[in-house]
């Protein structure tokens, strides 16, 4: 392994890492919002919307991200919606992640016994207040482990972005290997940078979990 090559590649990988994190976190944030909205629809069994959400979840979970990206990247322009790689990456990740996040939140919501809403309702709270102050905070803490697993999973899925020419870490590594045949150095940097991104998320996840366990939420 040639360390001078590594030093030379470093700035390229750093740029790519920033892009990966930026697109990944944006996509994940939207996925969480989509997931919460869908989970609430399923929890209250809202007619019509409930069917749409179920259809979306099956579609999203049973097709590969690569296919979803191709659909957005090549398909949408054909029906007159112009896209660019960044939009494509973020929306693809949000489309995939939304269903996983929905399932995580839904299991949290359904773990809360009905007596919790009933006692909150009997105190005169509106449905919205019951959800906001009583059900949601408890459901969220129950969902944290699944939620963090999804964040890590989605962050890793960003490696597919290279297929729609987003210059993320994977793209950079493949590019450099193709140009200079510096396979070892490129792959080494690829692994290191993914670890730099993902390890803190993992550690944050276990800290959160432990804190919530000590707080004894949902118990």
């Amino acid at each position, binding site marked *: 392994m040639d360390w001078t090559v590594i030093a030379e590649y470093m700035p390229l990988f750093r740029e790519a890492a920033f892009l990966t994190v930026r697109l990944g976190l944006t996509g994940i944030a939207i996925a969480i919002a989509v997931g919460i909205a869908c989970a609430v629809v399923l929890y209250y069994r809202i007619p019509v919307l409930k069917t749409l959400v179920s259809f979306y979840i099956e579609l999203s979970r049973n097709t590969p991200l690569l296919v979803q990206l191709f659909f957005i990247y090549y398909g949408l322009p054909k029906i007159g919606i112009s896209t660019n790689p960044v939009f494509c990456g973020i929306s693809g990740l949000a489309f995939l992640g939304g269903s996983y996040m929905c399932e995580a939140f839904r299991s949290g919501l359904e773990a809360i016994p009905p007596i919790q809403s009933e*006692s909150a*309702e*009997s*105190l005169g709270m509106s449905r919205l207040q019951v959800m906001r*102050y009583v059900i949601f*905070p*408890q459901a969220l803490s129950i969902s944290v482990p699944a939620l963090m697993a999804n964040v890590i999973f989605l962050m890793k899925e960003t490696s597919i972005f290279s297929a729609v020419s987003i210059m993320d870490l994977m793209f950079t590594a493949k590019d450099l290997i193709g140009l200079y045949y510096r396979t070892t150095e490129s792959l080494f940097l690829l692994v290191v940078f993914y670890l730099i991104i993902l390890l803190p998320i993992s550690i944050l996840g276990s800290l959160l979990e432990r804190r919530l366990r000590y707080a*004894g939420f949902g118990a």
Partner: protein
Amino acid sequence: MDITDNKENMTEAPVLLSVRGLVKSFDGKTVLDGIDLDVRQGEVVVIVGPSGCGKSTLLRCINALEPIQGGEVLLDGQKIEKDGKNLTAIRQKIGMVFQSYDLFPHLTVLDNITLAPQKVQKRPRREAEEEAISLLKRVGLEGKAGSYPRELSGGQKQRVAIVRALILHPEVMLFDEVTAALDPEMVREVLDVILQLARQGRTMLIVTHEMQFARAIADRVIFLDEGHVLEDLPPERFFTEPGTERAKNFLHMFEFEAVR
């Protein structure tokens, strides 16, 4: 235990809660079949009956936690309906305590009590907290304001649940077998709080299996069986000479013959 003072004029007190011809069924099976019941201001009405007779369902219907299939429930002449637009306003006038511990596990005792006053009644935090502390004192739990529900015993949780309902200044309190899930040594501390409320002249509707307690606290005992009100008597009459065979059989279950 003298709780009968100031209760001579009971028959002249205005009717606060009125249940008229209430019908409730689950999947076509009728659980409550035309219940009529009036509760006057300051009256303590105890509902007893075999399990599955619809006692708890009746309380849940009064609070509109269950949709009803017929009849009506009126509080102060206002109709209580599951999808009525003034439902949250009426529910504040009805305090309910359930059998299972229903405190919010993610909030401290103080936050459990002050959540509804702040969010529903829009009262300032400071004022709600002051009242919460003084109510906690009355039930002997002033030291537990900062504790989480999981740190409390069953009896303590039920006393907090009572305080959480009282702080909204309800006109009537509903107790749904509040001691049924408690260890025997904790039953007393909860019943004492309810007795204290009776002495203050609170209007209460109580479902219980504690017959001695029922006898001590009730102004009237309602015997419910298979969805019908079979008896509506003062406690002394009900426990000594109930009018129906079914009530006699029911009361008999609480007695033991001497073995020797």
